[in-house]
């Protein structure tokens, strides 16, 4: 499914992805989605459509370790985040939450807001209206986590396959 590209710059920190003032309240995912990128691009939350792609520069997700910075984009229906690089904790949290995070400089340089992109995780390919781009493919296990919708469902599923869990 092709989605619209939303492009941002370098060092997008977790505070502008999901404001700190909401972190100590319990919030259902739909509610979190309403605050996604609130302090960066106030239009984003109301206009984002399922399947859209967030594209950014270096060090996306730097700052605090809050998991909501991943959950809010996932709940908003974002298909993937493509950046030149990710802050380490953001990258891990995102995958464990089931949000694909792709590191690929060439795509970021090529795309602008309003372009179209689609991510094929298995093939390690980003298909866009500006051409196709390859990225180092994820391992089968990471694809598995992403497809299951996060680490806990994935773990459950794997244990069931092995007959270790009913």
């Amino acid at each position, binding site marked *: 499914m092709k989605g619209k590209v939303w492009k941002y710059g370098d060092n997008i920190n977790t505070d502008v992805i999901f404001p700190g003032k909401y972190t100590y309240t319990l919030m259902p995912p739909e509610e979190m989605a309403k605050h996604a990128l609130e302090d960066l691009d106030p239009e984003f939350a109301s206009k984002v459509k399922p399947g859209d792609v967030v594209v950014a520069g270096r*060090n996306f997700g*730097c700052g605090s*370790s809050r998991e909501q910075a991943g959950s809010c984009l996932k709940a908003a229906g974002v298909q993937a985040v493509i950046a030149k*690089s*990710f*802050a*380490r*904790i953001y*990258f*891990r*949290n995102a*995958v*464990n939450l089931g949000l694909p995070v792709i590191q690929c400089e060439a795509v970021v340089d090529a795309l602008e807001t309003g372009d179209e992109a689609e991510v094929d995780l298995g093939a390690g390919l980003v298909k866009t209206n500006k051409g196709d781009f390859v990225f*180092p493919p*994820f*391992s*089968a*296990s*990471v694809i598995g*986590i992403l497809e299951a919708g996060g*680490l*806990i469902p*994935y*773990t*459950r599923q*794997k*244990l069931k396959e092995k007959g*270790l*869990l009913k």
Partner: protein
Amino acid sequence: MGQTLSEKILSQKAGRQVRAGEVVSVSPDYILSHDNSAAIIQEFREIGLEKLASPEKVVIILDHVVPAASEKHALNHKIIREFVKEQGLPHFFDIESGVCHQVFSEKGFALPGLLVVGSDSHTTTYGAFGTFAVGIGRTETASVWATDEVWLRVPETIKFVLEGKLNPGVMSKDLILRLIGDLGAEGANYKAVEFSGPAVGSLSLSSRMVMTNMAAEMGAKNGYFEPDELCLQWVESRAKRPFEPVYSDEDANYEAVYHYNLFEVEPCVACPHSVDNVKPVSAVAGTTIHQALIGTCTNGRVEDLEVAARILKKKRVSPGVRLLVLPASRDVYAEALSSGILETLYNAGAVILNPGCGPCLGAHMGILAPGEVALSTANRNFRGRMGSRDAFIYLASPATVAASTIEGRITDPRGYL
């Protein structure tokens, strides 16, 4: 092209040749957790499994709030003890033991060539022994308990080539602070950091642990020294299992290489409120302090207490200053006790705390009031870390902290050694 230590260890674990940038799913040799085990237990229960996949790999060390500071903490510990019993976990260390990273190392779990994951960001410490050791989240830890598997991205590596020798009064803490100041708090984000070069041999294992511990403060995934004779001798006598040292190839690929001459390193201080806000002691000398802390997983070992005792021998802590001394483990405590170090510190006016994290994380035993200034040997000085949001935390070496307690203000230790 050759491989770095990280690439090699992860290749061995993955059963194929892997390079920086790839993601592997691997089975760790040990899984560390501490007081947060109660939260992990909750997540583990949610998965629905009854038994841990590999109980012999699980190491739980209670250290963060020990002995329990409140009923809530007590219940937390109780849940963990009951779980340990229920699952028959062989590697459990209760509240008398000390800070997890020190205990884990002393008890022979941190070994060359091993892969260790821990639900604590300073798990990086074990790289001092050539271990690939990395911090993971709580949810992930629950999943590793259940499946014996964790996914890891193979990190690129930054190499620091260390030359020369530290001057008297300058410690490895000053060196790592300097590196963090130069590189920035995100300078090694997601990367491995290799400390090598001719100066490494002159650094004790304790001094190396300071650096791998604080590699986390430049964003590193792991930091390490290649195991040398000194390291191998130390680990061989305590190893909990067989191990095979791993070394980087000469033609391994490094993302960046930085050279440092240790002769040029001065005593440094990380100023509020970030660890990369590093200045030479001379720039902040004279700043009044209210509380001083010598200890934690960063600088609570015998060599740290020993240098403090040398400085404080026959001296008194300034009347306006509270000096807290926190040996990193029970073993450290015993050695500092029998060698007279603790007596010297006691006579100087120090309060000797029981081994553990103590005031490092601001949970108990020495919370700061608004407006107070602390000088600590710990690894983090974030706003609010040791209590009030309006307190100020400076980080320095044990020598700098000890000298400063005599004068009641931040002081260059070189005049005292």
